[in-house]
């Protein structure tokens, strides 16, 4: 309980500090245009991007879930003993199959 309040307090503190310390602005068309090495900006910056980023993000989700499974396992490993260890070995073996598949398909290569 207290630490949520604390985190929020810190957050709000930083927020306010950032907000009120800014200085008056003197706007100007050139100053406010997006930086592009001195060129006039051509076309919108929101371009379509390589689909590979999606793949990385999806694989990240899957591995993150794996970590979420590993965390409680690491904590109670001594208590659950060999059976728990073997359960995780099976779990990881199955996932390593997936990992090897990724590797072999070249999903981890960034060309």
């Amino acid at each position, binding site marked *: *309980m207290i630490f949520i309040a604390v985190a929020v307090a810190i957050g709000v503190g930083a927020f306010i500090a950032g907000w009120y310390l800014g200085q008056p602005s003197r706007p100007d068309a050139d100053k406010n245009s997006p930086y592009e090495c001195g060129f006039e900006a051509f076309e919108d910056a929101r371009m379509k991007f390589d689909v590979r980023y999606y793949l990385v993000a999806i694989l990240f989700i899957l591995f993150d879930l794996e970590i979420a499974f590993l965390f409680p396992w690491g904590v109670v490993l001594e208590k659950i003993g060999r059976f728990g260890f073997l359960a995780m070995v099976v779990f990881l073996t199955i996932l390593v199959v997936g990992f090897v598949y990724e590797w072999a398909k070249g999903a981890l290569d960034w060309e």
Partner: protein
Amino acid sequence: MTFEHIVFYAISLILLVSGLLVVTVKNPVKAALFLILCFVSGAALWLLLEAEFLALTLILVYVGAVMVLFLFVVMMLDINIAEMREGFVRYLPVGGVVAVLMMLEMAMILASSKTGLVERSHPVSHGADYSNTAEIGSVLYTDYVYPFEIASVLLVVAIVAAIALTMRKRPQTKKQTPSRQIATRAGDRLRMVDLKSEKKQP
């Protein structure tokens, strides 16, 4: 009204308002950010229930991973909002049915004394040294070991599916194989040739 009540209602208010904003705000990136706020306040509610492992995992997995993917997708695709609006009427019936079903389910649970669903006793609150991470761990890998292994199979299926859906090999791309680069020796690339220096003919 204890302190916990106040915190609960404040967080719930944030949760509801941001949930509402997710569907009403026009800019898809902003909608995604409000969805993140939803998850964070949901996690805060779970913390109030002393489910700190679940709450932190919610942030770790949903906020830290799933929403990154959402943002990637939303930021990189130019989503035309007018086109999305057109789809609204078309999806309305399906969406409406799902929404009504969910409402009914919730109502059944909330009125559990009348609908005859079994009502559980209130969970006991534990002291500060109680670790529900360890509690989850001690049953997940022993009593629930089969569902746990099935989860790994599901994850593998997801990996395969993700690769099948998004992998596109372009034949003309060039890449290096670092292990081959490292393995080369000077002798493979370079040949020393002994050239006799030429002498001017007299």
